[in-house]
């Protein structure tokens, strides 16, 4: 109970830091902390496997990609020299408040149904039984997607040709 509130507050603070911090590297690190605290919430809710996957993939690989790219292209050279759209900010805050209000209404009307705990004890085994019997095709598609993303990244960022041309020029 106290841990729920604490976790929520921690997640909210880090999420706010992601959006409102001035430095992009700070917001990337705050995103890492947000993802870790979401993993902790998964753990609290009893879905251990997804918590571990969240730490392994989202916090361990995705967030590190962000930090890595930021440090590679040295973001600080053009920080703080752009003004943020003030009007846009106000309007979007209002829109967010409206969405939150609608959501709160929905939750408050169904609170008993939503807070029940119906996860079976051996959920991990059931999960994988489903994954590898009914949903094996999506699973295979996900692996193909990963492979496609891998190839796409190499194609987009690789500049083998340009490098070679430079080398040849320098030799001449």
């Amino acid at each position, binding site marked *: 109970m106290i841990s729920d509130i604490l976790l929520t507050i921690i997640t909210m603070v880090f999420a706010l830091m992601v959006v409102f911090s001035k430095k992009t590297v700070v917001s990337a690190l705050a995103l890492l902390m947000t993802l870790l605290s979401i993993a902790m919430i998964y753990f609290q809710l009893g879905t251990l496997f997804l918590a*571990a996957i969240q*730490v392994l993939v989202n*916090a*361990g690989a995705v967030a*590190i990609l962000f930090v*890595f790219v930021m*440090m590679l292209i040295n973001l600080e050279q053009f920080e703080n020299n752009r003004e943020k759209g003030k009007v846009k900010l106000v309007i979007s805050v209002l829109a967010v408040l409206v969405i939150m209000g609608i959501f709160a209404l929905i939750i408050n009307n169904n609170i008993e149904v939503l807070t029940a705990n119906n996860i079976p004890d051996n959920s*991990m085994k059931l999960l994988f039984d489903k994954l590898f019997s009914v949903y094996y095709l999506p699973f295979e598609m996900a692996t193909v997607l990963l492979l496609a993303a891998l190839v796409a990244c190499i194609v987009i960022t690789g500049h083998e040709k340009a490098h070679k041309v430079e080398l040849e020029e320098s030799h001449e």
Partner: protein
Amino acid sequence: MLEGILEILIKTVVILGIPLGALPIIIHVERRGAGFIQRRLGPNRVGPFGLLQPLADVAKFMFKEEVHPTHVRPFFYSLAPLVALTVALLPLACIPIMAPLEINGRTIYPEVFRSDMGIFYAFAVSALGSYGILLGGWASNNKFSMLGALRACAQMVSYELSLSTSIVAMIFLYGTNDIHLMVAAQTGYWFGFLPKWGFFIQPLAAMLFLVGIFAESNRLPFDLAEGESEIVAGYHLEYSSMKFAIFFMAEYIHMIALSALFIILFFGGYSILPGLDLIPQSPIITPILQMGSLIFKIAFMIWFFVWVRWTLPRFRYDQLMDIGWQRLLPLGIINLIATVLITYFRNQ
């Protein structure tokens, strides 16, 4: 409630105390081992056989002036060593040092964080290991530090792949994620003399994992992150006194945690060493023997680390990436596919 908290506290103290207490000894062994391998003496002036040298080092680190450069990013500069140490300590939480104990009808598990996916948790947490280094390198605001941190990070991310293929192969082989069940599967003998260790079934996976832990803990021959001849000292270039010492500790603890994982997967974890099980077992002797076996195995691994460090030269960076992506990863995938097929047909 109070009992539970007390239990967790005691476990935490023991699990943190053993590696932290062993650190000075490991550093001493490393120095003396270097001397032994290079046919020189090594530190031998402070105390008998130089045994008090680590203490003198600690005193030096504590009383040294802390140089705080002005061009760094202050908050992250102070945060980085702490992040590195914390993340290095986390995987130790799920490593059991003995079999579950039965006391007054209650089962007490020796690991702090008991879960049926212990190995998965340890691996997930050790994937965070590059943050401390990356933060340190970035916060130092120095080109050499940054280069070292980027190198370390790229290296850790690439070698994690081959490491994970070998872990998944072992999980398939044992059919479980639970460390206690894994160790139980490795207890006993084939033909009466060969211990049932995972190493003898999966030598290729063991090789991949071994190379992977060398790369993950940034040790020679993969210590590109701090290659002295090229980038001065890498990510901890701007750090001095206690902050540098904390980075140093984090590296050694990462090493201990990864070798503990290696031993659990491939060398039977806390299962008693062959020969020691001739001693008559009893509820008091068995846990001590198990603990002793685990510590002996880890100590051997640490000696192996030292041995390799002073024997092999450092790789070049493109060679490192070639080995990781073009040699180890395909080998790991082939090994994984073969393991999966064999397990499938054996269970038919």
